[in-house]
């Protein structure tokens, strides 16, 4: 099973290397990978049927519980087969669709990487690896959507898709970590028994919120749905694979997967029903007015995803059964329609449905495939779609008080979906073939076979639902509900309410198909409402966010050094002040202090005046000289207080500093009076505040008695062990010699720096 997952990644790495070498015209062989995976999983199907699941585990980062725990049960199996099965067809289709494309190897690489991620996702039992594969699907879809990277629109939609699903992914991580924290477990399959514990935890609400955000973004639920139509910029195989059959279902998978763990709680059901319902109706209505085939399909996909969320939200076993079946139903017919659309686009160069018609005359097999899919989509018997739709109505009708409102919503949705299906699957093929399409002919079998196969399956499963019932659907439902399933899939339930609803649906949908003719005119009327659509709102928010970003950034990083300093210093001052005045009882202990003598006072007065003079002097050199006076006063203070070495050093360094200034300043222009009074007052207050804080702090620290253990040690051992009598010097060259070592290195670096700064003048050819 690990191999099945890993092989996709390996393939992705290897394919760019080998495809160039092979020089083979056809790349059909690439489909062998998904095909063998499909066959492999198909071979495990009986085991699932018998035991319910297969489990494998590989250690990866065991210290935090991130392991490759794979768990294959009915639900996973459903998805695995969809992924590898439709994957096979898409790989085949691609070999023709992108034949000769310069970067075909990359495309296959992304595609197989995506497939592997998807497989990993649905197989993961470990909460972290689940997330890991989830993210990998997002990122590989980013590359796939942006595959036509010359086009700005394509790049933009890749970014949008990544942004939306990416942030959802991060919420998934949070949800998973939260779950892991609450349960102290890493394996999802082990969590269902802790369902009540989780729901009792105060993180439950957050976990749900995060999980929903993840699922809704990935599965394009209102109001996050808009990335999906945008993602249609991708090549058709991508749309087929990601945006109808697999990736967008990841969110559904996630919700389904966690139904036993988190479900059966009003916080779970309520939001899902509401969001699902809004999505399905909203998107279905949107689908009515599209002209672009892919747009129609995208909106109908969103609507279908809404239905699925809605069903999972209903949470009854009937609803979950309906969901399980509808996943498959939708995957089959929608993949078919996408592939067909791709062929139409590929051959005619347009996807504008109002311009298409009569293509049956030139590509009949494609038309047949489309027709079969459209029938399934419409839920017309004997298609598999009919089975699915029946189950949906059964589920909504079983909701007690809410039965009718919910059912009506479902009907509206289905009517619109039917319309959309007809528009995409039937309209292009019937009617008159436009002049300019006369010369078209049927593309190769690699292209039309995949949709045809899928179309046939749409009907086959409708005619013979038992093929799936015990092998696949039952294990799925068993996993979701945790009970032994007692249902039978069948096409014909007899004349009942549900059948009536189906008839109503099909009837009104078909009527709508003949009444409503999509046109530019209509579309533009609809687009007039886009100002209040979620997409525009998000765009508004994101442009607002961009404005905010640049405002925030420019506000802080405004280019003016002194504002940076003011910010930093205000921050320090506030923090210091807060901590000083809330945490310390201020007092001053004068008992230990030394008396002031006249000469010291004079030195201090001179120092203070010199400091002020430095600050307020009008000439740079006077400021420098006056700074020199400050330094010399220092020297005396050091001397008075028993620090001859310091006095010496301070003195020499001060003089050198003054000299450096003097040498540097000689050609600078005069000081300008550059700040106004307000600035100066502000700066003055800030400086004073900071100075005062430091003074107060110093006073307080001086009250503390200090352990003199270290200096005592030096006093006793400087001569005996360090062989020197000037203790300061012994510290400098011995006790703390390392400091001095570094200190002279600092000096050397500074000298090299000065040398370079003054001597290095890059020639115009060396300025990088």
């Amino acid at each position, binding site marked *: 099973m690990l191999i099945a997952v890993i092989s996709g990644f390996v393939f992705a790495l290897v394919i760019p290397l080998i495809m160039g070498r092979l020089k083979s015209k056809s790349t059909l062989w690439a489909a062998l990978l998904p095909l063998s995976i499909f066959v492999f999983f198909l071979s495990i199907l009986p085991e699932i049927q018998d035991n319910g699941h297969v489990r494998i585990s590989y250690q990866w980062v065991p210290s935090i519980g991130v392991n490759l725990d794979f768990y294959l049960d009915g639900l996973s199996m459903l998805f695995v087969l969809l992924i590898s099965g439709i994957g096979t067809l898409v790989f085949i289709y691609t070999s023709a669709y992108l034949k000769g494309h310069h970067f075909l190897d990359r495309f296959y690489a992304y595609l197989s990487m995506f497939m592997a991620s998807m497989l990993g996702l649905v197989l993961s039992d470990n909460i972290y690896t689940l997330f890991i594969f989830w993210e990998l699907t997002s990122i590989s879809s980013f590359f796939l959507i942006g595959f036509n990277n010359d086009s700005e629109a394509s790049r933009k939609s890749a970014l949008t898709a990544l942004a939306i699903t990416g942030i959802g992914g991060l919420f998934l991580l949070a949800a998973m970590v939260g779950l892991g924290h609450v349960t102290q477990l890493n394996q999802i399959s082990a969590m269902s028994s802790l369902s009540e514990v989780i729901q009792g935890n105060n993180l439950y609400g957050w976990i749900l919120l995060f999980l929903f955000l993840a699922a809704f973004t990935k599965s394009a639920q209102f109001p996050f749905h808009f990335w999906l139509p945008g993602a249609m910029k991708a090549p058709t195989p991508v749309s087929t694979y990601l945006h109808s059959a697999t990736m967008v279902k990841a969110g559904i998978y996630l919700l389904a997967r966690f139904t036993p763990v988190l479900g059966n709680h009003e916080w779970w059901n309520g939001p899902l029903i509401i969001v699902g319902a809004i999505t399905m109706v909203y998107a279905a209505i949107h689908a009515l007015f599209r002209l672009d085939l892919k747009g129609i399909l995208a909106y109908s996909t969103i609507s279908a995803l809404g239905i699925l969320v809605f069903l999972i939200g209903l949470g009854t076993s009937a609803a979950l059964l309906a969901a399980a079946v509808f996943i498959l139903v939708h995957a089959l017919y929608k993949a078919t329609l996408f592939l067909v659309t791709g062929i139409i686009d590929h051959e005619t160069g347009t996807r504008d449905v109002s311009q298409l018609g009569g293509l049956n005359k030139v590509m009949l097999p494609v038309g047949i495939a489309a027709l079969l899919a459209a029938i399934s989509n419409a839920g017309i018997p004997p298609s598999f779609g009919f089975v699915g739709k029946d189950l949906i109505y059964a589920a909504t009708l079983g909701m007690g008080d809410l039965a009718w409102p919910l059912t009506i919503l479902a009907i509206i949705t289905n009517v619109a979906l039917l319309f959309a299906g007809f528009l995409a699957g039937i309209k292009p093929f019937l009617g008159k073939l436009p002049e300019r399409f006369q010369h078209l002919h049927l593309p190769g079998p690699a292209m039309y076979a995949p949709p045809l196969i899928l179309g046939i399956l749409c009907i086959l499963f409708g005619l013979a639902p038992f093929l799936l019932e015990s092998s696949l659907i039952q294990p799925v439902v068993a996993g979701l509900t945790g009970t032994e399933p007692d249902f039978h899939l069948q096409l014909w339930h007899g004349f009942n309410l549900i059948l009536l609803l189906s008839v109503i649906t099909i009837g009104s949908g078909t009527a709508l198909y003949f009444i409503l003719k999509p046109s530019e005119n209509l579309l533009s009327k609809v687009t007039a409402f886009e100002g209040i659509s979620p997409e525009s709102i998000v765009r508004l928010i994101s442009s607002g966010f961009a404005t905010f970003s640049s405002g925030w950034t420019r506000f802080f990083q405004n280019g003016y050094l002194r504002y940076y300093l003011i910010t930093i210093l205000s921050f320090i001052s506030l923090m210091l002040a807060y901590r000083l005045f809330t945490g310390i009882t201020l007092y001053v202990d004068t008992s230990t202090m030394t008396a002031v003598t006249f000469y010291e006072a004079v030195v201090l007065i001179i120092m203070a005046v010199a400091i002020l003079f430095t600050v307020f002097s009008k000439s740079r050199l006077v400021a420098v000289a006056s700074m020199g006076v400050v330094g010399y006063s220092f020297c005396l203070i050091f001397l008075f207080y028993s620090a001859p070495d310091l006095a010496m050093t301070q003195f020499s360094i001060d003089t050198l500093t003054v000299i*450096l200034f003097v040498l540097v300043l000689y050609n600078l222009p005069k000081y300008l009076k550059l700040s106004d009074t307000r600035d100066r007052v502000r700066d003055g207050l800030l400086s004073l505040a900071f100075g005062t804080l430091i003074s107060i702090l110093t006073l307080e620290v001086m009250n503390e008695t200090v352990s003199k253990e270290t200096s005592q040690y030096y006093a006793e051992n400087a001569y005996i062990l360090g062989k020197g009598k000037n203790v300061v*010097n*012994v510290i*400098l060259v011995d006790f703390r010699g390392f400091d001095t070592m570094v200190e*002279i290195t600092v*000096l050397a670096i500074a*000298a090299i720096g000065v040398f370079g700064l003054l001597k290095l003048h890059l020639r115009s050819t060396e300025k990088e």
Partner: protein
Amino acid sequence: MKTIIFKTASAYLLPLLLLFSVFILLRGHYLPGGGFVGGLMAAIAFVIHSFANGIDKTKNIIKFHPGFLMPVGLLLALTAGSLPLAFGDTFMTGLWMKQSVPVIGSVGTALFFDTGVYLVVIGVTLTIIFTISEGL
């Protein structure tokens, strides 16, 4: 600066100050002074000379670029610090000669270390000041 008075005085100050700087260096372990101040004094001697006679002349006197003293001094200090490693001690452990040397007193790695400091400081100060003055 072309003044005879300063030029002449500097010619006498130079050896005096250099002598003095060595004095400051050597006695640092016992009294205020040491490699840093000593090095500064030496550097100042040359700086004064260069102010009086022009940098080129002072450079001629020194015979090599003063910056060369930096790696030399660093190497000296580093060697003094690392030597103990050869004796199984940790870095910077003081090694002392058994007998003390007249004039200097006990001779140990600390003195070599301080001499390293002295050389680096000369090198640094002269490099900086000469570089600036040349740009004037």
